């Protein structure tokens, strides 16, 4: 599904290498987690994959279903099936949540040469999906993320994911700013989308999210590289001992 080979990335504005050769392969139907200390390059990886400006790719490649991601615009990557759940979802005053989502859904459909979803069908679908995430009608009507609590914003991200039905979902610290109940709700939303045809890359600092979204593979990222890969037990080791032991071991 998602394949990253020897990816090296520096900031466009300053001579700072962030990713120093990342290799990663996420298969369809699998959940991979990336853990790592602050500044290890986890969020940068998610931004680079989804097409944010400001980064220069100096080496390496990234493909989704065999298609070269790095040559594409952000919206083309999305239409190809890549989805990033933002760590900090952006507030957009004056644009209704529903208008935004419908524009997004139909833009992707159009880009893929599919028929656009009618207003009625869209409404039916979004209402059903919003309900399972406990997003009420008022939240759907309100401007995108404006006045939403931290938990509401993250639930809104998952709603977008559910509506857009991507092939590859990257969750960037989706657990940050969530209380226990909200984390449970968000995780249930994510788990409901787990599917044989869909891959997940879950970026997190903490094991606790992985209690709810059980990963198949756990990677430890440090200083711009994946330094260790293992099963779910690796996350438990981090939780227990911190990163210091692992980092010392691979150094």
């Amino acid at each position, binding site marked *: 599904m998602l394949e990253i080979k020897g990816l090296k990335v520096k900031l466009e504005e300053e001579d700072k290498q962030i990713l120093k050769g990342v290799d990663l392969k996420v298969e369809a139907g699998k959940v991979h987690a990336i853990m790592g200390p602050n500044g290890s390059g986890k969020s940068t990886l998610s931004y680079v994959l*989804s*097409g*944010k*400006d400001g980064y220069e790719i100096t080496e390496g490649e990234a493909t989704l279903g065999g298609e070269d991601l790095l040559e594409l*615009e*952000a*919206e083309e*990557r*999305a*239409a190809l099936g890549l*989805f*990033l759940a*933002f760590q900090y*979802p*952006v*507030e*957009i*005053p*004056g*644009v209704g949540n529903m208008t*935004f*989502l419908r*524009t*997004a*859904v139909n*833009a*992707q459909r159009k*880009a893929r040469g599919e028929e656009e979803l009618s207003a009625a069908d869209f409404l039916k679908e979004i209402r059903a999906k919003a309900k399972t995430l406990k997003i009420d009608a008022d939240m759907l009507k309100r*401007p995108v993320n404006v006045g939403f609590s931290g938990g509401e914003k993250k639930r809104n991200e998952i709603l*977008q994911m559910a509506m*857009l039905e991507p092939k590859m979902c990257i969750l960037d610290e989706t657990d940050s700013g969530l209380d226990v109940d909200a984390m449970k709700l968000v995780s249930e939303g994510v788990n409901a989308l787990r599917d044989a045809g869909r891959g997940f890359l879950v970026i997190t600092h903490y094991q606790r999210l992985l209690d709810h979204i059980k990963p198949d593979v756990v990677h430890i990222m440090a200083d711009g590289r994946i330094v260790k890969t293992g099963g779910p037990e690796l996350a438990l080791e981090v939780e227990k001992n911190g990163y210091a032991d692992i980092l010392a071991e691979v150094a």
Partner: protein
Amino acid sequence: MAAVAKNQEATAARLDRLTVPSSGQWAAETREATLSRLREMGLPERRDEYWKYTRPDTLTQADAPAAAVYETGEAPLFDRFDRIKVVFVDGVFDEDQSDDLAGEGLSIERLADAVEKDIHWAKELYGVLEAKGQVPVERPLAAFNTAYATDGVVIHVTGKVAKPVNLIYQHKAESSDAVLHHVIKLDAGAEVTVLENGPAAARFNKSMEVDVADSAAFHHVRAQGRDHERRAVTHLFGRLGTESVFKSFTLTVNGRLTRNEAVLELTGDDAVAHVAGACLGDGDFHHDDTVFVTHDAVNCESRQVFKKVLRNGATGVFQGKILVQPGAQKTDGYQISQSLLLDEDSQFLAKPELEIYADDVACSHGSTSGAIDEDALFYLRARGVPKDIATDLMVMSFVAEAVEEVESEELRDEIIGRLESWLERRRG
């Protein structure tokens, strides 16, 4: 002094070539008095401080610069509303296209008819708010309008009027030069909505004087555009009585030169005055909002909300002032003017001012100029929204605060719908 004398001379030479429209006694007197004021102040010149950012020459020169007649090919704005249509073609009232000038709770007359009479109630308003609005800043083009206006409407609102009055302008002659003047008088407790739309003329000088008596409410929604070649100067004068409401919103799309002045005075306690505008400009677009709000009573609220979206070298101007007179305590004054610059060639010139002579007031003002928020743009694109559509969503987001000043949800939806369709056309 030499410059003033020279300008007075030039103004006299310009005015001597013009004919004052046929008028009965009251209007003749008003026009004569106005003309002497105008000769004294002279027409605006580029060196005038109040015209620092906007060149007045095409507005003052003898002949209107030609403007190609613009065919929109789209249904006129407000078409789906049940309203009283008053149509002006190149500044002349068109009876055939207009509805009967009658309605429950109001009386409407053509200005051209009202000025022919020797006695008319409009005397107490026509040119009166304009004359008052000349202090402390002179507005010679408004005086010019009072002196030379050939037509317009004179509306007396006595009750709560359900149907909006829609002033519809049509431009049919390439070099038409229209001077229209509307007078609207709202009795105590009366309510009316006035809509304005359509390209008016190659050059358009329009005034509207609105007297809002105690507890009355005046709503004004106007659209200018998309006739790019026009040159327009408009003045909106308002006087607000106790507990009255005055809300005006203007949408402007395109236009080589537009100067919209609003001069509002809150004279009764607990009055509310909102004036807002959103504009989209492209290329040699020049749009100037000049606003002067005077608080002269206690516990009044005023809001000025202006948003300009500019690209390809377009220019936006905002000159806005809140003047709080001595004794106007508990004033709540707010002013925001912002531009969204879609490229580096466009410019926004803003002069926000507060002048406060009372000590118990809350006044704030802000002015910003900026590019599209890259994080927000990325967020939209990461959801699959193509860059051009994402940019237009950000444009809608940017102007939302101004559009939300339109109180009627139906009218707000009409404005939003039209804005969206204009943006869609622009994307091609």
